[in-house]
């Protein structure tokens, strides 16, 4: 690990200002992904701003009947919150499908959103990777790409976003509240938080330098059946090959988002509209512009079949 200086932040706006001001500064909260990457020298921050002392660890009701989830709420606490279990079951299910008990006890809501891809070529510093070293090339496209993205890919990057939680938040129309270096706050719909890789896969979000996530807000509950179905190589503690997060209403309408298939949690408005017509129609919309490799082409039928399983469970 490269050496770094360390400070504890005292307020969100001070933290954001310090992060923008100090060269090579990064926030640290749970640290479960950042420290992993620092040990491999994939991340080499010169300065860490520990935000754990900020009072951002509450889940509160909002005036419009939704929930405001503090950025530092641990994954375990979010999944176990009685309101989340009752009204946003999809979010609990997605969280519980991810990582391990130990990791969920440390990992935070904002950190989960901002975790980096688990592409093995991103992790292997001997390999080219446009995300790790812009312009160096992508070893995954002609490499072992079984885990990789099938939609929204570019010639520069086919990495996936690894979060389960973000898939649920996408289907639930969550927004991300932030504070910027100048102290101003804003709310970003989660659909506008992530970027597709394009030619700049190292730029993963629309957040500005120093911008700190302070909360995630959920609109008022929409009812329906909440289902998260994750297909992976082992029964627990593995990243998704394909995951489907869905809210299905009694009349068959609903919303759906996919994990494990793109550089961001994948949702397509036209696919939601096809929900009453079944898995084949929904999958066709979700995967309209799919571009798979020889090794991950299996994900195309897997998405349709996983959708089929989810819709059958919703009916049952």
């Amino acid at each position, binding site marked *: 690990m490269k050496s770094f200086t360390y400070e504890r932040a005292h307020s969100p706006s001070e933290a954001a200002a310090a992060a923008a001001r100090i060269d090579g500064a990064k926030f640290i909260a749970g640290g*479960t992904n950042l420290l*992993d990457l620092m*040990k491999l020298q994939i991340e080499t921050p010169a300065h860490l701003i520990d935000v754990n002392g900020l009072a951002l660890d509450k889940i509160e009701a909002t005036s419009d009947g939704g929930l405001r989830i503090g950025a530092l709420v641990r994954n375990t606490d979010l999944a*176990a919150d009685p309101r989340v279990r009752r009204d946003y079951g999809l979010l609990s299910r997605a969280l519980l499908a991810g990582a391990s008990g130990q*990791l969920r006890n440390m990992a935070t809501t904002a950190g989960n959103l901002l975790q980096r891809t688990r592409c093995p070529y991103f992790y292997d510093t001997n390999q080219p990777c446009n995300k790790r070293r812009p312009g160096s090339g992508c070893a995954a496209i002609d490499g072992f790409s079984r885990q990789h993205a099938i939609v929204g890919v570019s010639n520069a990057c086919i990495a996936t976003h690894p979060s389960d939680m973000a898939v649920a938040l996408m289907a639930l129309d969550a927004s991300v509240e932030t504070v910027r270096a100048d102290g101003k706050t804003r709310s970003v719909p989660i659909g506008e938080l992530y970027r597709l890789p394009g030619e700049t896969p190292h730029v993963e979000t629309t957040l500005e330098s120093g911008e700190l996530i302070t909360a995630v807000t959920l609109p008022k509950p929409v009812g329906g059946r909440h289902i998260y179905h994750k297909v992976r190589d082992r029964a627990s503690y593995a990243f998704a090959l394909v995951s489907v997060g869905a809210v299905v209403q009694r009349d068959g309408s609903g919303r759906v988002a996919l994990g494990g298939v793109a550089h961001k949690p994948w949702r397509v408005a036209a696919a939601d509209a096809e929900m009453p017509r079944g898995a084949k129609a929904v999958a066709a919309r979700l995967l309209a512009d799919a571009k798979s490799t020889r090794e991950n082409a299996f994900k195309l039928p897997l998405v349709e079949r996983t959708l089929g399983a989810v819709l059958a469970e919703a009916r049952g």
Partner: protein
Amino acid sequence: MTKVSLTVNGESRELDLDTRTTLLDALREHLHLAGTKKGCDHGQCGACTVIVDGRRINSCLTLAVMHDGDTVTTIEGLGTPAHLHPMQAAFVKHDGYQCGYCTPGQICSAVAVLDEIKAGIPSHVSADLTARPQLTATELRERMSGNICRCGAYSNIIDAVTEVAGRQA
């Protein structure tokens, strides 16, 4: 170097640490509590599991400086050779290990798992999210999935945890 105060196994300890020191290295290299093991050092194996402020975490994926003022329980703090913690005794009785390297992490994790179930925290395999989680082998297996045992003592580990869970229930 940064000063860090920890309460480890009931004793207050002051350390002067390089900011890079993980909690795991602080325990093993600075406090010489070598019961907590370094396996993968990347949060994948669970050998470094300790209990901080009542919660199990991977001590390899957190910096010691982030724990100033925290209370840490390691395997050495759960029981002693003369007075084993019930979970330690059950692992011995059920032969819940072979080489023993993952065992301190398994035991710290198992102790916390039973507290998590008692606190009503659901898991991936809980059928009903809003009901109290059950003390079944399926639940225990899922909740222990962050602790890898390369010797494959899993079925005996589950027997040990089940016995302690039953006694507690």
